[in-house]
């Protein structure tokens, strides 16, 4: 059954990508069916799991021995437990909705079949990532989602910016992959196994420094895939991909893989205070950095991308808190998956009606023209900023509460982040749906077709009720507890105090944004006489500039000088010896060639002759 979960979308991808033009007419429908079937299987497995007692809920499936060399024994096997199933439901559920949405969004794209092939490939890879029963197979899923992401970001390949963005995403992610590779290498030499079970069992027996190094290497991996500081720079560029891709891969699922990795490897992090602290710091920096970038973006997708970075920062931070945070990291991941996918699909719907313009300065007053988009976006908005009783409130509030239990500054960072989130999201709402119309001349905004709005409505319902459903019906804390462990935070600040404070901060952020963007007219061209902070936020906090001066320029210099060195120094040196020994020089090339060729022939002839004579003598 588990194999079928992955196999169906994989089959869809293979058929679509190898089938060629024959599948153009129905390829996208096949992709939807494959993704939906996978979801139904997931739902069935989930129901089965719910029906079983807590200790019998994990199931495994062994397919074959993948690699076996000496002690390096890797099975190709799957493992489905309470943690994996929630991911599977999110991936296939949101994935299927986005497949459906894409039917409308990509209707006129000549490469639609290919697009759906890549989407199916992504679903299969992501499922492999969360269903693998060992770190090495997880690595296969991990890089396969990277490949799907690369293909989809640079989907509009004739656009140079899209091609560059895809490459950048892959390369930055490869830096993270070095972390995963090193973690796997360390695990292998320390434990002699790479199964989740074996590593968890052995972690307590290993040297504490080794455990810390494994944790830090895993964190590096998580930073790559989840766009956390300092490997965050690729995510904003990734918005070059079609919007459904941004919703599915670069918001709801793939970018949360880092959170999954840390929670899955909790046995390592439970034992290393240092590694956990590093995780919390990375999360805190990223949640503020992403929110900060989000405040100044005029590109609606980049604004949401900054927000994604920031929200994943919350999850990473929560995961770094240990048993008090793991379940809330996953809880926030699930609610975020719904509301952020919904927000992105809403942004796509707006773009669809605005000739693919992403600049919010050209929007305004769209609430009357796109009623469904407005309503669903608004629900997503309420969920992300954390207004009760919408989904984000329940999960984010728990994280803020747990963070205060850890450390006052960390707590304040999460609180500040909540305020900034309210600010940039209100700004986005105001610029897009309120105010006066600032549309370009030939643009006639219109609502998107039902095939697009229905997935948006479903996700909006999730944004509204998903949090309560998971908390009160699903009892998410105790559902995940057998896998991740769970502890109530020991806090000096009680929730009764914290919730009103949080709500006040959120209200402050939203109110200030409304004063700046809702009440005042918005200039169509971005003002240039802005503060240094705004300039920094617009430039993605100079992430690219730093990468460029630290890595790219020195790298280019090194490459160029080595290339020169190879051609001139090494080859020149050898050439010099050759010239000295054989009297060979560039000027007498013709003579030389004759010489060598005849030498070669003579030697060949001689060797043959000797061989013949020797043979004859033998006979």
């Amino acid at each position, binding site marked *: 059954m588990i194999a079928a979960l992955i196999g169906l979308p994989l089959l869809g991808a293979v058929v679509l990508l190898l089938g060629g033009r024959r599948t153009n007419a129905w390829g996208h429908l096949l992709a939807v069916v494959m993704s939906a079937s996978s979801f139904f299987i997931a739902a069935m497995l989930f129901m089965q799991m719910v029906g079983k007692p807590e200790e019998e809920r994990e199931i495994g499936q062994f397919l*074959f021995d*993948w*690699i076996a*060399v*000496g*002690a*390096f024994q890797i*099975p190709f096997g799957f493992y489905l437990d309470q943690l994996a199933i929630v991911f599977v439901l999110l991936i296939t559920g949101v994935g299927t909705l986005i497949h459906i949405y894409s039917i409308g969004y990509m209707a006129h794209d000549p490469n639609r079949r290919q697009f759906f092939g890549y989407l199916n490939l992504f679903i299969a890879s992501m499922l492999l990532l969360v269903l693998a029963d060992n770190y090495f197979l997880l*690595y*296969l899923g*991990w*890089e*396969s989602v990277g*490949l799907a992401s*690369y293909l989809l970001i640079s989907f509009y*390949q*004739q656009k*140079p910016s*899209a*091609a560059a963005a895809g*490459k950048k995403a*892959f*390369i930055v992610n*490869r*830096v993270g*992959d*070095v972390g995963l*590779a*090193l973690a796997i*290498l360390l695990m*292998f*030499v*320390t*434990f*002699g*196994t790479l*199964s989740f*079970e*074996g590593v968890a069992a*052995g972690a307590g*027996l*290993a*040297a504490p420094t080794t455990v810390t190094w494994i944790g830090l290497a895993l964190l590096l991996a998580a930073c790559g895939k989840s766009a956390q500081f300092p490997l965050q720079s690729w995510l904003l560029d990734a918005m070059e991909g079609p919007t459904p891709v941004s919703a599915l891969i670069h918001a709801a699922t793939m970018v949360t893989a880092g959170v999954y990795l840390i929670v899955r490897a909790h046995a390592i992090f439970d034992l290393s205070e240092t590694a956990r602290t590093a995780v919390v710091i990375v999360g805190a920096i990223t949640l503020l950095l992403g929110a900060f970038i989000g405040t100044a973006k005029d590109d609606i997708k980049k604004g949401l991308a900054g927000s994604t970075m920031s929200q994943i920062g919350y999850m990473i931070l929560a995961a770094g808190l240990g048993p008090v945070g793991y379940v809330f990291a996953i809880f926030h991941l699930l609610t975020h998956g719904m509301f952020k996918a919904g927000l992105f699909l809403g942004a796509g719907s707006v773009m669809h009606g605005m000739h693919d313009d992403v600049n919010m300065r050209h929007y305004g007053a769209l609430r009357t023209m796109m009623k469904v988009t407005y309503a669903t976006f608004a629900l997503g908005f309420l969920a992300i900023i954390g207004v009760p009783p919408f989904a984000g409130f329940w999960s984010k509030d728990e994280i803020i509460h747990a963070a205060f239990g850890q450390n006052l500054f960390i707590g304040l960072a999460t609180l500040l982040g909540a305020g900034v989130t309210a600010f940039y999201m209100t700004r986005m709402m105001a610029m897009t749906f309120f105010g006066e119309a600032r549309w370009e001349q030939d643009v006639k905004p219109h609502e998107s077709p039902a095939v697009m709005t229905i997935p948006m409505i479903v996700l909006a319902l999730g944004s509204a009720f998903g949090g309560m459903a998971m908390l009160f019906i699903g009892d998410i804390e105790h559902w995940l507890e057998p896998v991740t462990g769970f502890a109530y935070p020991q806090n000096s600040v009680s929730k009764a105090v914290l919730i009103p404070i949080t709500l006040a901060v959120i209200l402050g952020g939203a109110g200030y944004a409304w004063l700046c963007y809702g009440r005042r007219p918005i200039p169509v061209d971005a003002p240039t006489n802005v503060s240094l902070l705004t300039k920094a936020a617009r430039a993605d906090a100079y992430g690219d500039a730093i990468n460029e001066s630290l890595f790219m320029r020195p790298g280019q210099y*090194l*490459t*160029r000088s*080595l*290339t020169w060195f190879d051609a001139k120094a*090494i*080859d020149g040196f050898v050439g010099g010896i*050759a010239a000295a020994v054989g009297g060979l020089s560039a000027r007498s*090339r013709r003579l*030389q*060639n004759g010489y*060598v*060729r005849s030498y*070669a022939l003579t030697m*060949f002839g001689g060797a043959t002759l000797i061989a013949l004579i020797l043979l004859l*003598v*033998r006979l």
Partner: protein
Amino acid sequence: MLLTIMLLIPLVGSIAVFLLPASKPALAKQVALGFALITLVVSSVVVVGLDNSTGLLQYVESYEWIAAFGISWTLGVNGISALLIVMTAILVPIAMIAGWWDAENATRGTAKGYFSLILILESCIIGAFAANDLFLFFVFFEAMLFPIYFLIGKFGGPQRAYAAMKFLLYSLVGGLFMLAAMIGLYVVSARELGTGTFDVVTLTSLNIDPGTQKMLFLGFFFAFAVKAPLVPFHTWLPDAAAEATPGTSTLLVGVLDKVGTFGMLHFLLPIFPEASKFYAPVIIVLAVISIFYGALVAIGQTDVMRLIAFTSISHFGFIVLGIFAFTSQGLSGASFYMVNHGFSTGALFLVLGYLVSRRGSKRIADFGGVQKVAPLMAGMFLLSGLSSLALPGMSSFVSEFLVLAGTFAVNQPAAIFATLGIVLAAVYILWMYQRMMTGVPSQEVTETVTEINRRELSAVAPLLVLLIALGFFPQIALDSLNPAVQQIQEYIGFSDPQAPVVIEGSGE
């Protein structure tokens, strides 16, 4: 007899092709392809019949040749050499199909000459992989230079004469060192046994004193390091690969260079165990330098064929790293890497060859936007490239990771540095793809570059299928490699280090 027959088939084929009238090039090509395919069938029979429970030589045949010098015609294969022979037998017909028209435009040679030379080359390479008499190996090792020399010198690009000469000189100098070391080894064996011998198994059982080992080792190592090639003995490779026809480059880089790394595995480690251990730390440093140096210089290339040649220098670094780690993962990984590298580099050279012959330029800057006019071609190129950067799911990933795991167990700094190499691999492949395949095609590209045709596809597709299939089912190959690797470990007296934490009942 089977191995001798396998070696003679391409040789007979080459003579047959050569004797055909020059007025019928099509017939000559078909006959050549036929002989190459028969060789493939025979080599498959050899591999299928291999007994995977032992690492000792199989299909052994030995005939006395020059008794006075202890030279015999001894052939035999283990898992490693058998797989390398199959790889050769797969790549030869593929190079023929891909380069079906390559020789037609040559100014100096004829099509039948080209195909006849390829068959001679195949025969020599199979001989080198199967030889278990050191002198016999040397004969094949030297003899294969000549077909390659003419393949480059007659059918290559504008700088072919220079490139061919450079290749020949490097190889001959390397061979000279090996010859000297071989004579030294013969003298040692004569002193130990009373009569001198070149028989590899007998030489392996000798107890050569460490001082002598260290001297003789260097002679062989130099020859193999030139062939493989390791930095700084590499500069012949980019010239040769860039000037040769794509089919020749595939055989040169994909197959012939493996004789160097194979020599390290099959002769150096078993015959000179003490010297191998002594030099291992230095060679590992050289290997890591090669990984980085090859990758960085590849990034700086403007000629796409040279770029691929430099990536291979980086890949050879990985292979040598795995060999001198001595662990089972390192050795099996390195052996498997040799096979995978043959396929993935072959695929890259061939697809690029298609593009270069259409566009009439090897300069990266002359391309751009190819995926718009030839999407299938771009897709094939991307897949070959992904294999070269060792994407999980492709067989090259399995071998690269095994090398890393095998190295990490004994030399952590080297393994960590080598791991950083995977970032550079992504840079050189994807940047090349971006510059050549994406963007808006120029007028020249639109006019000249056409979609991949059926013949071209039939040459590249099998390689890609193999790379993916072996990525998911690598055990098919590893099962044959593991026993041979254990045997090598036994010869050098090395066993894998144990993990410090032993987990009871860890499921697997």
